[in-house]
């Protein structure tokens, strides 16, 4: 697949190729021009829809509420295969629909939804670069009316379990020279100085620190001030400079797996690393489970 790549004022821009294959990153401008296409479904993924989607969203965008729609309603887990099928069906998404995701909190939860959709094998998938923040900063149109898409019969045909990793498998890889663990939280969370991220200060774990052997590359280092992703070469230097190289199996984690989805997206989708897995149990699991080893 060949992408057209234009580096404009140090901001990376991916556009549709002449072959109309799909980039994983689309600009706000692209979304503004293409949001009415019947084969495109724009989805806003929010942690807090009350302060985001319901205050105004991209015309035609459906809402995926991260807590209610992307996660299992009972147990702590991502949505099931059947749940994802139901979510896509009621969102008017078919197996060949091009889903464009964006959202609040610098696209954290849009990246999480991207990861889940990839895990359930959806092919035509993009993130709107810069997310909700950039759309608003550019004073683009926001509407309050929610669309009522015609339901579809979405079917998951392949589950990519290799994109996810669970605690026992992380534990089994500790100390392996072929594995790179990337802790994308803030330095103060990594060192255990604080027990919760500033965004969720009261949701702290029992213990602070990081998984032994993990390097600290905060998610935000992959982004520009305006929330867009940095140029590819800069991203490559950032991760390879910290020993996170494509020859390794890379595991990303944060607190609940949403910030690490951003880094998973960078490594897997932008830098095309072959083996990248998101540990969505993350610190809220590792830092609370009895007997897990911790480094500070």
């Amino acid at each position, binding site marked *: 697949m060949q992408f057209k790549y234009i580096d404009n004022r140090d901001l990376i821009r991916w556009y549709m190729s002449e072959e109309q294959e799909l980039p994983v990153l689309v600009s706000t401008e692209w979304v503004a021009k293409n949001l009415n296409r019947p084969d495109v479904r724009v989805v806003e993924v929010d942690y*807090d829809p009350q*302060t*985001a989607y319901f*205050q105004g969203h991209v015309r035609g965008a459906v809402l995926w509420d991260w807590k209610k729609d992307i996660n299992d309603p009972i147990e702590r887990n991502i949505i099931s295969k059947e749940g994802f099928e139901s979510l896509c069906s009621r969102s008017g998404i078919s197996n060949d629909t091009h889903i464009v995701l964006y959202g*609040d909190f610098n696209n954290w939860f849009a990246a999480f939804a991207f990861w889940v959709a990839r895990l359930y094998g959806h092919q035509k998938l993009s993130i709107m670069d810069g997310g*909700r*923040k950039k759309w*608003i*900063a550019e*004073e683009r149109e926001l509407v309050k009316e929610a669309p009522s898409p015609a339901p579809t019969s979405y079917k998951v045909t392949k589950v990519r379990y290799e994109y996810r990793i669970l605690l026992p498998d992380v534990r089994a890889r500790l100390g392996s020279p072929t594995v790179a663990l990337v802790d994308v939280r803030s330095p*103060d969370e990594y060192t255990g*100085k*604080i*027990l*919760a991220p*500033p965004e969720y*200060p*009261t*949701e*702290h774990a029992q213990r602070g620190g990081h998984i032994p052997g993990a390097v600290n590359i905060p998610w935000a280092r992959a982004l520009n001030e305006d929330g867009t992703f940095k140029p590819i070469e800069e991203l490559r230097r950032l991760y390879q400079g910290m020993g996170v190289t494509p020859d390794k199996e890379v595991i990303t984690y944060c607190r609940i797996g949403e910030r690490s989805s951003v880094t998973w997206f960078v490594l897997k989708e932008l830098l095309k690393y072959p083996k990248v897995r998101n540990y969505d149990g993350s610190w809220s699991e590792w830092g609370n489970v009895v007997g897990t080893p911790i480094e500070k």
Partner: protein
Amino acid sequence: MVEEIQACGFSSNHLYFLEEMLWLSPIRDRVFRVGILPITQTLWGKVTSVSVKQPGDEVAANRAICLIESRRFLGNVRAPFDLRIERLNMEAVERPWILQRGFGEAAWLCEVAALEDNCLTRLKSWSEIRGEVERMISEKGIICFREVPDYVHAAIGIDCSQLLMVLSDKLEGLPEGSIIHIVADYNEGAEKDLEKWSRITGNEVLDFRVEKRLAHALIRRRTQF
């Protein structure tokens, strides 16, 4: 003269553009100093960043002067009339939460020059908006503090004997100097209990108020005392 409602200050010398939560203070002919109303403390949460247009930029009415990001808000603040940005308050750009404290020397965002003769038509005086502001404060449970809290924690329904334990637990994960606004059911003796707890733990009680049978305490985390 500044009038306070639930400790949110409103100057009778200022003009207001309530739709965008702005106050404007005339400083010379058709030039205004612009700031953000302190009621945004409750409505938006603590403002964490502001991206404002640059001096010399002209902004049409209803277009963005700045992009505000806070704990619960991300949006543009729009111009009440055609204007030109004259000057920025860099202290407020760097520490934007000071905008929400009120009308002090530091609490303005920018100075703007009106580019239209009828610039005052969309602005209102304090007496014109007073009733609307009172309604808003009452309906939305707005409360202002001298220091803008970093976080709000609702502990309503928690037994008073457990409250201080919950508070200690919540503070444990916060960085030194963080300010938390805790809301709990009021009971007699709560303020004294809090003072005692403060002396023992070193955490600082900045404010304590009772509104509609709810206690509001503003506490600064201190680990060294």
